[in-house]
């Protein structure tokens, strides 16, 4: 821009020098006074709108003096010093045409005189006529821009009157017929039932009717055609194939594929969920506004709903380079933002927003600033792969069922404890069973102090273990101290216990459930202070599991390496309790008691501490047992205390509870009940997760080849770019929308609600979704117009707006604008549901009329823009292939899931994997688009390679053989009949039958001659292949 201004400056200097006269300054001052006395104001009010204020008619921008002098396509507008020589004056005084102002009345004579004088004085400006000119002359959006037919609110007109009311099935027909009548055209008669049925099947589900479906419909339609029609329409709209047929139309718009494109064309293995979302949403008749909202911001709007997450795949379906150099990082990201906004623009709004990337849109009222404000929405949005529970309802139900049992067990146990535990404790004290009378191998140390150097929190459990909660530090050292009476201690035991609070149930706190105990040290000192603290030498380590025999073995936690090596339990030990025991080289202890200090270090791996430790010591003679019975130290203490008490009442409630908690772990009955509860706890249902590619913010980005080079995936801020060049950054942008689609004093903030507390994302996308679907003040009316036009286009072959992806000024205007708005209104009134609209369209007379051609009518309307007939259409790639599979009995109707590149796949074509470098040739042959930018209309070509496919393709031949297998059981004349019925839904004429019968016998004969023993089957396959090649098979009328 700097360059631009500099150029203008130099121009003005040149002109100024030429016109300098001795009284120049004086004249200019006078001129300035005239400017301020009305001329400036008049120009602002009457001229600027078309000459600089957003529009620049005749390439003349008068908002600054320099621009005025520069002039427009007809040369300079003003010659300073001479009103008569100035075009501006000649036009406003109506001396020359075009008279100005072009709109509204001629300026008052007095004002025109002022203009003349002003020009004579040198035409000075007191100010620029538009503030924005200071910022560089950006396009302005005015209310007149909002008056363009596509941008105005929906206009609800009453249905037009028609002469021939017999022709009318519903409102749609009023709109269409009134135009036909105005053109003096009669619509065609209704199509034959058979033709209509075929049309309905292909349009709605993309497959032909089976012979019995044809027969049933014909029978029903003979009775009550309207009821038969309604019934079959309902049935087709409710078919799961509907979503497969119409989902494919949407996937064209979404440039959906399963790979990145570019260099390596890396697969996106989890992108197919987006395709499945589209099919499911359409089959469920999801309201279209929700369909749109979820694709933009499903993760923000319904984060708990897997379908909403899958929907965001829309944003990330575009191509992206898989190999990037540092120089390309940022421009590639801007390309990606452009892809997201551009695809959204064409698919949802029928607007070519991407055209405003390098300069203000040439035709539509989209300033470059709006473009950059809009792409800011996606600044931090990236592709990620996350684990999603695709059936949260099932999980929830399972969990609820489980919870009932759990509650019952837990309540039962609690009740039992309340009722029985106290008595049993008394009995136990009075009559201690032999095995608990001090005969145990391990004394569990629960009465101890445990401290984490890095802030981990320990929560004491009933069984003497400590559960770690809260912060999981990168590394840690625990210092544990306790006091004991024992002497002659022979060993120490460290347990790492599993717990459901940890990943994979632990027993470690690492993401994979592992831990790594780098080092263990034990120290003793006498309680009376008579001896110094000494280290205890540990020997003979044993364990229930160790990750390896080297650096992750139990021995490595007492080796010379204090940091790198240590005991770990991955690759077999995850999710289970693990134990390590160490012997003391010599028995240790003091008669008066001992203070024991244990230090545990966790430095070997990041955040790899034990999650639920339990410590015990033993006096057992060596070798000390790895397993063995245990008693909790506090129990021992309490028991000793209890022995001295006469009854339980002497205990404080707190001590009593502690005593009971300790006691119950020794009670067989309690243990039995508790084990049951624990077993159930272990069986708690877990969600079954699947990897899903989504577009969101804050998740780990999908892997990229350039990650090693430091590719950042996104940049927090979006800048306004000069000429779309990321090296020419201007100011930082804030999110905004297209101002031409903002009405009624709405500014962005109305859609940008504050984000919720739980928000992980920016909620800019939700704001965009709010604006997109706002029918009162936002883009809602256009959103509705664009989608109803798409429905119409796919039902009739051409849209009411025949440029379905461009509703802008370069697009075509609607042939039936009132009908378009009526349909959009119907959509909104039915809660944005598409199926009722489909139904209304296909139940109309105009849809159901015949395809018969009429030369007379075509003289008036050659392109059938008024719909005097049904235009015959060639089927698209998918229905051609799917129909071949269907009629030959090979179609596999399995829905959803990962696609395949196998061209011989027998599922519907929408389930092909779409790898951008390996598109399925058969699909491409019949004009299936390259998934690069959104496509709203496919071409329909006729080329010889298509014929080659029908002649020679292996899958076609296999389909022919399969159908021949079915025909083989019939005599030839019946086989011909069945073949015709199956493939094109009608019986052959007599002549067709004769010709085909002759053909079959000739072929059979020739196959016999070469010694084929399957000659008849081959002949029937040749016949079946002829049926596939019929124009009637690929053209619907």
């Amino acid at each position, binding site marked *: 821009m700097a360059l631009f201004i500099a150029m203008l400056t130099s121009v003005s200097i040149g002109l100024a020098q030429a016109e300098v006269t001795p009284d120049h300054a004086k004249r200019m001052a006078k001129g300035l006074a005239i400017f301020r006395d009305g001329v400036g104001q008049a120009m602002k009010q009457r001229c600027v709108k078309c000459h600089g204020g957003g529009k620049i008619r005749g390439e003349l921008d008068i908002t600054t003096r320099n621009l005025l002098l520069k002039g427009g396509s007809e040369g300079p507008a003003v010659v300073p010093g001479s009103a008569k020589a100035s075009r501006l004056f000649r036009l406003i005084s109506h001396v020359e045409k075009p008279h100005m102002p072009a709109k509204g009345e001629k300026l008052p004579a007095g004002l025109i005189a002022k203009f003349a004088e002003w020009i004579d004085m040198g035409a000075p400006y007191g100010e620029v006529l538009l503030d924005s000119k200071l910022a560089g002359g950006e396009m302005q959006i005015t209310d007149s821009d909002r008056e363009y037919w596509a941008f105005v609110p929906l206009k609800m007109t009453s249905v037009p009157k028609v002469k021939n009311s017999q022709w009318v099935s519903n409102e749609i027909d009023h709109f269409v017929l009134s135009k036909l009548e105005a053109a003096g055209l009669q619509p065609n008669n209704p199509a034959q039932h058979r033709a209509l049925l075929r049309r309905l099947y292909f349009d709605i589900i993309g497959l032909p009717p089976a012979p019995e479906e044809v027969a049933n419909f014909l029978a029903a339609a003979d009775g009550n055609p309207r009821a038969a029609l309604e019934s079959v329409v309902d049935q087709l709209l409710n078919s799961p194939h509907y979503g497969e047929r119409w989902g494919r139309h949407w996937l064209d718009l979404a440039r959906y594929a399963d790979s990145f*494109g570019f260099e390596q064309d890396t697969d996106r293995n989890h992108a197919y969920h987006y395709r499945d979302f589209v099919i499911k949403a359409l089959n469920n008749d999801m309201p279209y506004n929700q369909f749109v909202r979820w694709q933009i911001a499903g993760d923000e709007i319904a984060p708990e709903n897997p379908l909403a997450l899958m929907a965001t795949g829309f944003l990330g379906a575009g191509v992206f380079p898989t190999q990037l150099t540092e120089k390309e990082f940022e421009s590639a990201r801007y390309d990606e933002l452009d892809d997201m906004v551009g695809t959204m623009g064409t698919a949802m709004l029928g607007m070519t927003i991407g055209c405003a990337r390098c300069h203000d849109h040439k035709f539509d009222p989209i300033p470059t600033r709006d473009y950059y404000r809009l792409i800011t929405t996606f600044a931090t949005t990236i592709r990620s792969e996350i684990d999603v529970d695709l059936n949260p309802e099932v999980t929830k139900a399972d969990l609820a069922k489980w919870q009932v049992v759990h509650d019952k067990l837990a309540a039962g146990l609690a009740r039992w404890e309340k009722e029985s535990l106290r008595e049993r404790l008394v009995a136990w004290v009075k009559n201690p069973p032999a095995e608990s009378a001090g005969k145990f191998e391990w004394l569990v140390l629960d009465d101890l102090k445990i401290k984490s150097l890095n802030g981990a929190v320990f929560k004491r459990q009933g069984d003497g273990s400590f559960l770690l909660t809260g912060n999981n530090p990168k590394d840690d050292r625990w210092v544990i101290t306790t006091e004991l009476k024992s002497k002659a201690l022979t060993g120490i035991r460290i347990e790492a216990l599993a717990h459901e609070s940890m990943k994979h149930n632990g027993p470690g706190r690492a993401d994979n459930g592992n831990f790594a105990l780098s080092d263990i040290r034990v120290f003793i000192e006498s309680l009376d202070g008579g001896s110094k603290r000494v280290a205890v030498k540990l020997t003979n380590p044993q364990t229930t599991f160790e990750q390896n025999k080297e650096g992750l073995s139990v021995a490595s936690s007492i080796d010379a390496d204090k940091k790198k090596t240590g005991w770990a339990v991955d690759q077999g030990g995850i999710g289970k309790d693990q134990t390590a025991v160490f012997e003391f080289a010599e028995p240790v202890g003091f008669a008066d008691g001992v203070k024991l200090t244990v230090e545990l270090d966790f430095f070997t791996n990041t955040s790899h501490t034990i999650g639920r430790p339990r410590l015990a010591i033993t006096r057992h003679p060596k070798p000390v047992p790895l397993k063995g019975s245990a008693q909790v130290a506090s129990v021992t203490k309490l028991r000793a205390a209890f022995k001295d008490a006469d009854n339980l009442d002497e205990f404080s409630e707190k001590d009593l509870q502690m005593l009971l908690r300790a006691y119950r772990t020794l009670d067989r009955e309690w243990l039995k009940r508790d084990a049951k509860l624990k077993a159930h706890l272990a069986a708690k249902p877990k969600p079954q997760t699947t990897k899903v590619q989504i577009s969101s913010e804050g998740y780990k980005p999908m892997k990229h080849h350039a990650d090693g080079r430091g590719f950042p995936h996104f940049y927090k801020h979006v800048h306004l770019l000069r000429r779309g060049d990321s090296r020419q950054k201007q100011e930082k942008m804030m999110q905004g929308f297209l101002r031409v689609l903002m009405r009624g004093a709405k500014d962005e903030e109305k859609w940008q609600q504050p984000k919720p507390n739980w928000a992980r994302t920016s909620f800019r996308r939700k704001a965009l979704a709010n604006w997109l679907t706002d029918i009162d003040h936002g883009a809602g009316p256009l959103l509705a117009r664009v989608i109803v036009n798409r429905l119409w286009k796919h039902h009739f072959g051409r849209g009411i707006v025949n440029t379905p992806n461009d509703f802008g000024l370069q697009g075509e205007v609607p042939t039936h604008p009132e009908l378009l708005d009526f349909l959009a209104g119907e959509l909104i009134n039915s809660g944005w549901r598409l199926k009722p609209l489909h139904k209304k369209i296909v139940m109309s007379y105009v849809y159901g009329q015949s395809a018969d051609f009429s030369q007379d009518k075509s003289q008036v309307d050659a392109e059938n823009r008024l719909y005097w007939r049904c235009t015959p259409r060639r089927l698209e790639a998918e229905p051609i292939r799917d129909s071949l599979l269907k009629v030959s009995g090979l179609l596999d109707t399995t829905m959803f899931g990962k696609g395949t590149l196998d061209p011989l796949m027998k599922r519907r074509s929408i389930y092909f994997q779409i790898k951008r470098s390996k598109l399925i040739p058969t699909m491409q042959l019949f004009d299936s688009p390259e998934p690069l930018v959104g496509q709203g209309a496919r071409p329909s070509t006729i080329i010889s*390679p298509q014929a080659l496919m029908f002649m020679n393709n292996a899958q076609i031949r296999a389909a022919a053989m399969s159908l021949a297998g079915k025909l083989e059981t019939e005599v030839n004349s019946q086989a011909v009949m069945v073949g015709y019925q199956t493939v094109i839904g009608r019986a052959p004429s007599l002549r067709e039958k004769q010709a085909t019968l002759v053909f079959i016998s000739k072929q059979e004969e020739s196959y016999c001659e070469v010694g084929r023993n399957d000659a008849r089957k081959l002949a029937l396959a040749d016949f079946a292949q002829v049926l596939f090649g019929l124009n009637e098979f690929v053209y619907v009328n």
Partner: protein
Amino acid sequence: MDEIREIKNLTRRAMLQRCGMGMGSLGLWSLLQQEGLAGQRTLAPKHPHFAPKAKSVIWIFTNGGPSQVDTWDYKPALAKRDGQTLDGFDRFTGFFANSVGGLMKSPFEFKQYGQCGKHVSSIFPRLAKQVDRMAFIHSGHTESNNHSPALFMMNCGLPRMGYPCVGSWVTYGLGSSSDSLPAFVVMSDPKGRGLPKGHAANWGAGYLPSVYQGTHFRPTGDPIDNLYRPREMNPDQQRRQLDLLRHLNQKHLDANPYEEELAARIESFELAYRMQSAAPEALAVDQEPKHIQKLYGLDDDKCKHIASQCLTARRMIERGVRFVQIYSGGMENQRSWDGHNDIKGNHSQFAAETDKPVAGLIADLAQRGLLNETLIVWGGEFGRLPIAQKGSKPGRDHNPHAYTNWMVGGGINGGVSYGETDEIGHKAAVNKVTVNDLHATILHLLGMDHERLTYRYNGRDFRLTDVAGKVIREVTS
């Protein structure tokens, strides 16, 4: 604009007749497409904007980015400064920022050839003898230092995926003059070294109808899909089958006489039947006399694969194919001209694979009088740096700032060298040429104005040259 208005006023039948008579004009397709009337006649020959100098193109795509200073851009100063550090060099220019070495002279000797006295590297002994026919452009520069964006730039005019390539634009603009072969054929490396980066997008039609995409002749197996009739059928059986199909479709057409598309589709089966024999015939280079095979180097193991492709290319353009692209080399590194390591070994090898076949092609076309109506283009997606990429055998890294193209044939001013790089061949310096300029020039030679060859898509008139491009008049005759 007037043309569109005029066409809109035509009746549908009249319009189809008009196209059918070969009067279809540029830009008409999009209109036809919107009306759903497009038929196979879209590939019928169309008139260019003005008298063409060449009718068809053979593009030898030296994939991977050949080094200009080791091939056609003689830089004595580079030899003098061998080993010096290149001051101010941006280490992110190439692909490997951490392997930046000093300036490195060419390992090859240069000698002068022809009347024009062009200096040519010793790796092109045969092509060197054709320099008086060639026009060199030394000042090419591009927008990416990375293979696939640069490939897309060179093929499609933008460094992004998804735009129609030159071959698609040319067939869109001119149609095909063959009714039994594809209009636009691509041949890739047959030695198992892969496809160029970005694969089929390099010959894709982008938003143009897929009719215009390149047909990739597979290097092994069936060259194109569905070319051979089912194994169990003999020619008589298939002919009978097609006769029955034609009969039944004709009856259907008789009942719907105004549906032009139905007639077109009937005809497409007949064309397909002819293609079954025409395509294998065009590929049958062994039908050529021995001395012709030898001229291309079919008897030479080093280069017989490219020889076969070059000879096939000639047979194709003789049969009306409009655009043939031959990729020399497969993917990156030592599989193509991408000489990151051992520039000497790499370029010696790929030059030896192409020198004799391409020189043979030029000579053969000339002796048949076809060279003046065929345009041959030689070049890759970018050039290489004058500094070394460090390694046990030094190579050269990517250089988007300079590369050399040459063209020969119809409309080319032989012996001309246009544009210059700086004294070490690092950056284009004099008369810089963009990829858009090169494309504009190619279209110009084929009789098309690059600013008028447009296609309306999603609300915009797209061009191969986007918003730029200037015909390089100095290289055209």
